[in-house]
């Protein structure tokens, strides 16, 4: 008799979602000057959650001006120790209100509550704690002690609050002030974070949040009043930003796409490798720039690994993001869903074999079953382009040299994984992989002390660790 888990939903009542939000400028929520309102929806139900502002040119001007004033009048002259106090305070508030933030993140983004509760929120708090510790020790980081000024930060929808933490914590620790634009489909946790800034009595203007879509982002990064641009998102937009920033005084860091290889050798711990493959591509519905979207498995164990992987995938629980037992939640938006669908169609057309476990998808909302493609070659588009969804391409290799060659044969270079019980092989392969992060016998593990960033078209600059301060100091 099958063991059916009864629904175990986390209650949404803990979080109070307002019907309408303004912009967070100079420490206050303000009505837009020239921005228009648009709706943000719950991707799991398509219900409207709230109205937010698409900030216009005058709104962006006001936010940048507020950040400038806060920088010149307060923040840059505070001692590191005093800046640290605010960051520690924010970190503690994030911990105190973690459940509320996690629920809101799952509602707005579609990711399972298990992940927002056990991964996103602990990392968000850890990031603030970590950079709070650096604030009075900048001279030991080795990148100078002078802040840059006003940082324009544009973040994606896949880890809304975590990306906010990656951007804001080091910027503030180093003495900069920020104007941050969350993604248009996931603005709500950033706006709740703004309330936390008020609760922490952060000086007005140190953190400003302007919501909106690509146009607002463009206004922000092209604004002459910003000294630093930090962007996480697609390579296409990253290129446009690099072009617009070229020739200005602005410093730029970019964290862009990826098409990571997850390399499984025949002496790998198979059961854990299968877990790592699943975690590599199905974590956060595959909306992860460093997702292990290309599985390179040694031919001699390919069949065994694939059998285990399929058996494991049949156990994945797809559905209500707020159910505590859900493994895979909703795709973040209709646009993303159609991109995943069309690339998957192309995979089939190009001759790869598509497989998904039997799974019932809810009728409303945006859903995509976990999918693998076998018989994929390097020439297939699904092996080259970032799908940013729960779709894995499986390729095989025979020798370590072939594995490295295939892993590196991509315009991207954000992350990679190596699975083998042989320590010397881990070191030898990691040395030859052109990827910013190489995981050994694990995947998609993050820590604020560890720098993260890409090679090649995956961007430049590092976030996290001591290296993460470099982009905010002169």
């Amino acid at each position, binding site marked *: 008799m099958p*063991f059916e888990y009864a629904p*175990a939903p986390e209650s949404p009542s803990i979080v109070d979602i307002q019907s309408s939000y303004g912009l967070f400028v100079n420490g206050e929520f303000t009505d837009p000057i020239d921005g228009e309102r648009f709706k943000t929806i719950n991707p799991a139900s398509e219900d409207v959650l709230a109205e937010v502002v698409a900030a216009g040119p005058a709104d962006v001007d006001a936010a940048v001006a507020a950040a400038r004033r806060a920088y010149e009048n307060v923040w840059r002259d505070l001692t590191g120790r005093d800046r640290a106090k605010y960051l520690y305070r924010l970190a503690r508030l994030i911990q105190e209100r973690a459940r509320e933030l996690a629920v809101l993140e799952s509602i707005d983004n579609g990711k399972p509550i298990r992940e927002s509760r056990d991964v996103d929120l602990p990392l968000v708090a850890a990031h603030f704690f970590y950079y709070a510790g650096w604030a009075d020790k900048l001279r030991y980081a080795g990148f100078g002690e002078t802040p840059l000024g006003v940082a324009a930060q544009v973040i994606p929808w896949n880890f809304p609050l975590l990306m906010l933490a990656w951007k804001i914590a080091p910027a503030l620790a180093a003495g900069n002030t920020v104007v941050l634009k969350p993604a248009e489909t996931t603005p709500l946790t950033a706006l709740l974070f703004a309330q936390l800034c008020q609760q922490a009595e952060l000086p007005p203007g140190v953190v400003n949040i302007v919501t909106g879509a690509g146009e607002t982002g463009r206004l922000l990064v092209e604004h002459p009043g910003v000294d630093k641009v930090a962007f996480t998102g697609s390579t296409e937009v990253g290129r446009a930003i690099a072009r617009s920033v070229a020739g200005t005084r602005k410093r730029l860091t970019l964290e862009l796409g990826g098409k990571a290889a997850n390399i499984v050798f025949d002496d790998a711990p198979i*059961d854990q490798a299968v877990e790592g493959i699943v975690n590599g591509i199905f974590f956060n519905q595959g909306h992860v720039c460093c997702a292990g979207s290309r599985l390179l498995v040694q031919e001699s164990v390919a069949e*065994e690994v694939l059998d285990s992987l399929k058996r494991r995938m049949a156990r994945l629980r797809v559905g209500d993001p707020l159910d505590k037992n859900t493994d895979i939640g909703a795709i973040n938006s209709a646009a993303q869903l159609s991109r995943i669908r069309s690339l998957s169609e192309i995979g089939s057309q190009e001759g790869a074999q598509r497989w998904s476990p039997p799974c019932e998808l809810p009728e409303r909302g945006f859903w995509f079953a976990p999918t693998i493609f076998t018989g994929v070659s390097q020439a297939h588009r699904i092996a080259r382009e970032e799908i940013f969804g729960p779709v894995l391409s499986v390729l095989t290799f025979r020798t370590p040299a072939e594995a490295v060659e295939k892993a590196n044969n991509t315009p991207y270079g954000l992350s990679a994984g190596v699975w083998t019980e042989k320590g010397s092989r881990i070191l030898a392969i990691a040395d030859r992989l052109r990827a910013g992060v190489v995981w050994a016998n694990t995947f998609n593990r993050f820590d604020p002390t560890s720098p993260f960033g890409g090679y090649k078209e995956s961007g430049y600059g590092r976030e996290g660790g001591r290296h993460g301060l470099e982009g905010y100091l002169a």
Partner: protein
Amino acid sequence: MTNAAGGLSVVELASVTGSAAGFRAFLHGLPGVDQVGAEQRAAMLATRSIKTTAKAWGIDLAIRMVDLTTLEGADTPGKVRALCAKGRRPDPADPDCPSVAAICVYPAMVPTAAESLKGSGIHLASVATAFPSGQAPLPVKLADTRAAVAAGADEIDMVLNRGDFLSGRYLAAFDEIVAVKEAGGDAHLKVILETGELATYDNVRRAAWLAMLAGADFIKTSTGKVSPAATLPVTLVMLEAVRDFRASTGRTVGVKPAGGIRTTKDALRYLVLVNETVGDDWLRPDRFRFGASTLLNDLLLQRSKLATGRYSGPDYVTLD
């Protein structure tokens, strides 16, 4: 020879125990276990939230899987009789409450237990082979086993010879299990790996395969006399082993975590582990057991809480 999960023919399996070197090569050729990964997987499954109907179903199943155990020097016939009565009707106030799977005692207590369990359908398990250390000559272990079976035990919980295993004398440990299996006749054989003394998950996987190849019907984590006893990751590794063993040989072996499982929450976590590692096929008392003594009382307390909406208290379940 491919590795374990790759599938082995019966002939190949018979040949792996043909020589000490060959057997060693086979056991060391099993895929390794990454400690961090295995523990992470077990910890993730422990976050599953089992509520309402699923909880009620799980509690009843867990009761039916309990090997209600007393293994103390101070055990008396009276205590064993009381335990047997409790095993038959765990909740005297509720005739719908299922019986436990088995009563587990020392060989000296088997005659008393056999008498008390007559006609109940509850299995009678006896530890044997110089439990818990196994430090006795083989003839003594075999005599121990025969005596327990002769007195009425239909399940034998033997201990793996850790001395042989840890010093690499795999074939000697294997031969001992084969001999005990033979001495036990039709009795179901559970082989206790004593994972707390094996120290690594690689060892646990090898010991599991060794025991299964030697004819174990069940593999069991612990005696309960060594700390740590059963843990979720150890049980995960053993479940993976029985799953792979069945894929290779077609024979299904059961798993019994024992020691340290005290609460309903613990028990439900193990059931989730079974469900998501090997599936429904093992979610039955002849494939999965809990070796426990105090667990039953907590299962009963939670069971009546679900039924009545109120917690009773320790005075409303019987002392062991």
